[in-house]
């Protein structure tokens, strides 16, 4: 027997759960202002998230997938990406979107069941949330292909969950990214659950990072509760990709602290102990501890920022609830560039129906 190939998977963390550095912080994190910025963004994301859940609970919005506990991932990604890069999320990354020009009221409107929300006013190229699990990986690969063909120094970023790594589309994207050396960064939000299916029942892999080996490129594990680690590894990966160095896959290890969505009840399948332990690891407290230790943040600032976040979020809620309803004709008017003749009659019918007050709500 001859050894023909060897691979290692590395794990990176800078701040432990108590906010103590476990190694020298990377250059960007020497600037405490940046860390404060990351902190603020995580808090904002969490405040927004709690409000969104509340809106669903009070019947003002549809099903909502909380990103509670996973803010370091979305915020770290958004902070590392450049404006000209393109983002392909699944549905737990409003923390990234807020940094990329997507407004809070757009995110609320999306979960409120309004396609207009996806017509981001301030972001023209990012993909909207993607419900069919894993499929967005291929869109990102296509976008990265376009960048490569056009010799643009831009990078596509695709995020998916641990469950999504079981999908063929995820793997097909990984394989293509490798063989075409695409400017593409894959991020896996490994929150340990795919609805009720635990990470251990999803794959036998020691790490999800090693899924990259099936594409012939590097997979990295990071502490997904450490925004410094996420931000650092993202930047490394983005700049390597931008320079023509090909794709990277980053597995960010975290925990889903909420139910899967507001339609789920995790008590059916989730161990209370595990949840309690996971709360000890969550990303916001640890960075706050560090910032407080460094005197870069204070309780007063905390209070003030919480208030500011609430104000911002309340404003977004106002914008959302006061948005005039979409038109029934919208379902025809954006289907094709130009309405095909076979739809004219149906569109007329929809207008006539709507004048009669629309259909009654069903079910």
């Amino acid at each position, binding site marked *: 027997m001859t050894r023909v190939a060897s691979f290692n998977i590395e794990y990176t963390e800078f701040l432990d759960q108590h906010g103590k550095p476990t190694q020298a912080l990377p250059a960007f994190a020497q600037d405490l202002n940046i860390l404060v910025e990351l902190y603020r963004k995580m808090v904002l994301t969490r405040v927004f998230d709690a409000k969104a859940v509340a809106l669903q609970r009070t019947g003002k919005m549809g099903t909502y997938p909380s990103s509670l506990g996973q803010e370091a991932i979305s915020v770290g990604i958004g902070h590392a990406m450049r404006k000209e890069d393109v983002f392909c999320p699944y549905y737990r990354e409003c923390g990234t979107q807020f940094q990329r020009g997507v407004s809070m009221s757009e995110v609320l409107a999306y979960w409120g069941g309004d396609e207009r929300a996806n017509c981001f006013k301030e972001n023209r190229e990012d993909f909207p949330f993607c419900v069919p699990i894993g499929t967005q990986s291929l869109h990102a690969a296509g976008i990265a292909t376009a960048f490569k063909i056009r010799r643009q120094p831009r990078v596509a970023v695709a995020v998916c969950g641990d469950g999504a790594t079981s999908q063929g589309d995820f793997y097909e994207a990984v394989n293509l990214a490798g063989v075409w050396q695409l400017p593409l960064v894959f991020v896996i939000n490994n929150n340990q659950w795919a609805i009720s299916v635990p990470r251990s029942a999803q794959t036998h892999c020691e790490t999800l990072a090693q899924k990259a080996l099936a594409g012939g490129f590097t997979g990295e594990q990071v502490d997904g509760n450490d925004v410094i680690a996420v931000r650092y590894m993202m930047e490394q990966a983005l700049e390597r990709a931008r320079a023509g160095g090909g794709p990277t896959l980053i597995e960010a290890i975290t925990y889903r602290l909420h139910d899967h969505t507001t339609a789920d009840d995790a008590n059916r399948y989730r161990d209370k102990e595990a949840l309690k332990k996971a709360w000890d690891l969550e990303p916001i407290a640890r960075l706050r501890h560090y910032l407080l230790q460094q005197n870069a943040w204070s309780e007063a600032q905390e209070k003030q920022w919480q208030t500011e976040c609430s104000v911002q979020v309340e404003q977004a809620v106002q914008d959302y609830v006061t948005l005039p309803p979409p038109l029934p004709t919208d379902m025809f008017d954006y289907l094709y560039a130009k309405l095909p003749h076979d739809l004219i009659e149906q569109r007329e019918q929809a207008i006539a*129906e*709507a004048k009669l007050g629309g259909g009654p709500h*069903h079910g």
Partner: protein
Amino acid sequence: MAEITLIEAVTQALAYEMQADKDVVILGEDIGVNGGVFRATVGLLEKFGADRVLDTPLAESMIAGIAIGMAAQGLKPVAEIQFMGFTYPALDQIINHASRLRNRTRGRLTCPMVVRTPYGAGIHAPEHHSESTEAIYAHIPGLRVVIPSSPARAYGLLLAAIRDPDPVIFLEPSRLYRLVKQEVPDNGEALPLDQCFILREGSDITLVSWGAMLHETLQAAKTLAVQGVSAEVIDVATIKPLDIETILASVMKTGRCVIIHEAAKTGGVGAEIAAQISEKALLNLHAPVLRVTGYDTVVPYLKLEHYYLPNENRILNAVQQTLEFA
């Protein structure tokens, strides 16, 4: 006997048949510990164990593909796909293999599997959770496609689907899951997989529908009765193979027909039914067969969903048009 919902009838049928036939195995995402996102498989893991209630990784082509292998080995896998919009990754395995295995091997290998999936709009769910693309499946030779519209029919048809020696696509109207309750004796009695059900007899017009739209169709029939119009209501139930005889017999009698379905109009199953009626009962028709359907658009997100779905009013309009024809 307690009254049960459609989804409880699904659970009851699964439990009955798993008890009766040890080859019946269920598989899918979140169907075990969690009991299914709609709770269709609640309690089955506890009752039948992890060997027969398989929580799978998240991959629909995989679910369909392994069901084929299991079925070829003589198991009777009943796979749940979480929503119809997530069946599409499984289409290749279903079209290219499940539907063809028996024919390809001239009967040596067979594929007694069921794919269950919630379908249809109206539950205010996110995108891709409101599909009704049954026409895709109904076009595939080698498949059966079955859609229950009441707890009792869900029970009897699902039993029949599991017992059927060939692949069955079993579409459960999610809007009906908890809408009505009914006594459903747990007697293991299956319903025929190749027959329509006449839900209401009538003489003036035939209303043909299936799945959740029967709810509005029956309402319309009631309204029509008040107006003195006697509508016969047919639940197609099995859309492949199509029991056109029952439909034809009714239309021969009434001379008028409106077909109601939630799916997009163009190429929907309503087209096939209308084409066959017009072919085989042309001279009996007093008016063109009309179709009341979803629009040829993507099912909109929940804010516009109710504009998409056909409602009683649209049905009544079509009926009136039909009655007033020439």
